[in-house]
């Protein structure tokens, strides 16, 4: 089936989200749609899937014009879509989810579960999806849930499959798995539209790349095009993909964490005790260095950050900031003590989307001089600071009174950075600071983080993007199941890092995090669940104290 979009235009008020876009797909190819957030990729795909109607232009299927006025029309025309946010019923099994809206029935409307399961199994085998039809959806990892979504499209006989930012939620290995599946689908003659803003992925998987910028097609390139050229097309100017930084000059110890244990909030069967989310972590961060914490999402990084911020209580262990014990301090006290916090989920934890930019910029200093005197807010001072920061951080907003929720993701993140970095912090705690951002914003955020380091702040960078870890870190700690499986210099080979992230140490034996002799910093013994691990305090603090070798490369 050939699908062709001709001159698609979509306006939202004065904003042209799609401006005469032409696009065509052919069976057995993967067509990547590359563009920054807000370039109009999702709008275009929503038009194709019948969720939005174009103001101009037409959709041709096998050369004939068709009106797609609802997702049902799209499905009937052989178009399937996997949304960024899954549309699955968590308590249903895979087979039930796949069959939903497309149920197989026996006489009298009885559900034919056997046939449903068989069909799922068959399709799963055909495309190498490896999905168990009887598994409960909520128990499945994100990567597998995504495959269930793909199955849903396949069972409805989709010939064109739209994947909207499918890798945004995946770990590196899950991404590899997805690519394998995409290749199988391509081999069987499906056309795939792959929406992404990640250059490397597009280069790895696409047959053709169409680049969108501000609602327009700005070019079509083969995947062999250089990263720099693709990035320039996407952003509209030359972008530095790799931030340049000088060598770190670590100074005094800013943060000293000993045997930190944070209980898990996970709900388990009654009687069972969940393993702590952070299970005895010891490390130090010095002024002027960036400690990157690598690891697959969900290995305790979130809890570690929240415990460092005082948002989660520590079960045991200690946290010292600038030689002050802050183990039991509230978030407020820690902010005042000089921590800047860029939370993982900026919309959930970092911003109040209905508040104007100005109020978000003083969200954690609103009661401080000069923004308040006594109980009264100083609106003038708040406004002045906001204007200044908007300029300094190049926040693209109509005015400082614009609700922050209407800004793009990159600009929202700049608002958070402007707030956290705007005051002098001695420790910057940045969790997934560039998640979901486009190339231009990533460049900016990276530069600011390095500037903070050079100014003399200690920086902890938590990221599941290995590129980011490599680009910024002066030291890398690898986290797996609530522990650090090792510390490495930033020139560690990616294979070694991958093994450590999977909980396998350098020698290849699984399940033995922190085997002695390999790490620059010994992790606590496997079963150490509390403070009393006798050897750790004695030995561990050494590692950060010997920067020369670690920095040599």
């Amino acid at each position, binding site marked *: 089936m050939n699908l062709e979009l001709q001159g698609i235009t979509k306006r*939202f008020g004065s904003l042209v989200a799609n401006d005469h876009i032409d696009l065509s797909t052919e069976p057995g190819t993967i067509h990547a749609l590359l563009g920054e957030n807000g370039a109009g990729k999702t709008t275009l795909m929503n038009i194709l899937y019948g969720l939005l109607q174009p103001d101009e232009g037409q959709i041709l299927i096998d050369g004939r014009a068709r009106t797609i006025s609802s997702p049902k029309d799209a499905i009937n025309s052989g178009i399937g879509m996997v949304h960024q946010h899954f549309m699955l019923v968590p308590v249903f099994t895979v087979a039930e989810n796949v069959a939903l809206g497309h149920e197989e029935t026996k006489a009298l409307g009885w559900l034919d579960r056997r046939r449903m399961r068989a069909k799922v199994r068959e399709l799963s085998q055909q495309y190498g999806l490896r999905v168990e039809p009887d598994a409960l959806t909520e128990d499945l990892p994100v990567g597998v849930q995504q495959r269930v979504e793909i199955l849903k499209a396949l069972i409805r006989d989709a010939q064109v499959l739209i994947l909207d930012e499918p890798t945004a939620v995946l770990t590196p290995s899950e991404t590899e798995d997805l690519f394998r599946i995409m290749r199988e689908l391509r081999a069987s003659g499906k056309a795939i539209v792959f929406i992404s803003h990640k250059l490397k992925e597009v280069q790895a998987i696409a047959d053709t790349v169409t680049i969108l910028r501000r609602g327009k097609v700005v070019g079509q390139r083969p995947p062999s095009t250089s990263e720099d050229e693709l990035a320039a097309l996407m952003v509209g100017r030359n972008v530095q993909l790799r931030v340049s930084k000088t060598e770190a000059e670590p100074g005094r110890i800013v943060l000293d964490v000993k045997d930190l244990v944070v209980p898990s909030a996970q709900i388990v069967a009654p009687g069972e005790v969940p393993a702590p989310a952070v299970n005895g972590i010891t490390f130090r961060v010095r002024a002027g260095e960036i400690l990157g914490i690598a690891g697959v999402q969900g290995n305790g990084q979130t809890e570690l950050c929240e415990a460092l911020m005082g948002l989660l209580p520590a079960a045991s262990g200690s946290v010292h900031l600038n030689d002050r014990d802050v183990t039991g301090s509230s978030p407020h006290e820690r902010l005042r003590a000089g921590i800047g916090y860029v939370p993982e989920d900026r919309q959930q934890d970092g911003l*109040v*989307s209905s*508040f104007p930019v100005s109020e978000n910029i003083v969200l954690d200093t609103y009661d401080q001089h000069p923004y308040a005197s006594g*109980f009264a807010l100083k*609106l003038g001072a708040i*406004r002045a600071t906001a204007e200044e920061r908007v300029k300094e951080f190049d926040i693209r907003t109509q005015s*400082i009174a614009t609700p922050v929720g209407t800004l*793009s993701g990159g600009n929202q993140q700049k608002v958070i950075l402007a707030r956290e970095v705007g005051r002098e912090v001695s420790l910057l705690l940045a969790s997934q600071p560039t998640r979901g951002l486009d190339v231009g914003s990533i460049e900016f955020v990276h530069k600011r983080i390095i500037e903070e380091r050079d100014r003399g702040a200690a920086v902890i960078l938590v990221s599941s993007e290995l590129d980011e870890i490599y680009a910024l870190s002066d030291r890398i700690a690898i986290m797996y199941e609530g522990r650090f499986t090792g510390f490495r210099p930033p020139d560690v080979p990616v294979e070694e890092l991958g093994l450590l992230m999977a909980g396998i140490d350098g020698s290849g034996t699984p399940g033995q995090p922190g085997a002695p002799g390999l790490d620059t910093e010994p992790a606590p013994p496997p079963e150490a669940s509390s403070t009393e691990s006798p050897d750790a305090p004695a030995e561990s603090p050494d590692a950060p104290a010997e920067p020369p070798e670690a920095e040599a490369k």
Partner: protein
Amino acid sequence: MSESPPAPAAPPESTPDDKPGRDKPSFGRAVLDGILEGNSLVVTILAIVTAIVLGGLLIAFTNQAVLNAWGVFFSHPGYAIAQAWDTASGAYVAIFEGSIFNPHTVASLFHQRSLSVALHDGTISSVFNPLSETAVFATPLILAGLSVAIAFQTGLFNIGAESQWIGGAILATWLGYGVSMPIVIHVVVCVIGSFVGGAVLGWVVGFLKARTGAHEVIVTIMINYVMAYLLAYLLSKPSLLEKPGANGNLISSNVASNAHLPLLAGTNLRINAGFLLALACAAGVWWLMNRSTLGFQFRTVGANPNAARSAGMSVTRSWILVMLIAGGLAGLAASTVIQGTDFSLNFQSYGTYGIDAITVALLGRARPGGVVWAALLYGALHAGAPGMQSSTGVPVDIVQVIQALIVMFVAAPPLVRAIYRLRETKGGGPGQYLSKGWNA
């Protein structure tokens, strides 16, 4: 809170690609947001207009004369329509005359020989009586409405204005007749007492939510029952609040005249200092929410408690404090009734203040200025209703129906938009009104 005009359109780089603000608000939260943020002023006004039109139809078509006229519609269509119009408009005119001004009393003013005579024989008073009555009815609604509104803005649903009203009333009444003090001091003591009485009950709700996670809606509803029966109990014991010799009538002694709120416009008009107190509280709440650090904290907690926590604010402390203030405001509402108009407390004094407070807060979109206007509207409907019944025979209950219709339309902005073919407001995004009120 910023004084710059609302931003009309999204910036260029923001397109529908961007995911909207919060991820998954709870159902209650979503409903609340829809009501508080989804309404423009236009929608609110249209909701009122629609409710009045529907109320008019109801007035007309429950009237026997109109129904008889419509029975002969095909022979005398003009008569049927005229009859319906006359009935409905007559009722509304009566409400207007009872709540704002009555041309007849103004006409009689001109028949007086001089202004000083008019002043003495009460003609002037009767001209202003409707406005005075509107203000008197609006006063407790403003205060109780502020109580609900301030909690709304902090993300809490205060259903407990009723119990807080009772708490305030009990203290104000007891201090009003039980102790004797010089005139100004007595008034102030009773007013403060009513605030404390309400605040304690509000605090309990906030404390339970902060410490145990008990949902404020459940807790406040239960406390409403407890307080209603506690009031009846207190009023049934002569040793407690019961008036000596009341013989089980469940009524308290009258508060001392020293504790009465001073009248503002002579003895013929009921308008009293309570109205000024209510307006001052509205201004105070506006300042608190929009110009103070505490209000900033409240609004942040209301809009996104997670972000508030990350920014170092104490969410639980905000809940406790805001419920304390909200309870105090509802308590003050009782003070304006007990010390301003009723002067005694009976087991039904709390009437429908608790529910009316919620509707006033919703209609006023949880902002102080809006609450004042909404309370004045409701006050006017209340003030005009008895006159309407006596002069046109339309039952006073129709006013309740109109109030309910207003709230229904306010709560369903898409319905109003559909009726008037309005387009959903784009641009500024949700929450524009929460952060920048039209009173800012």
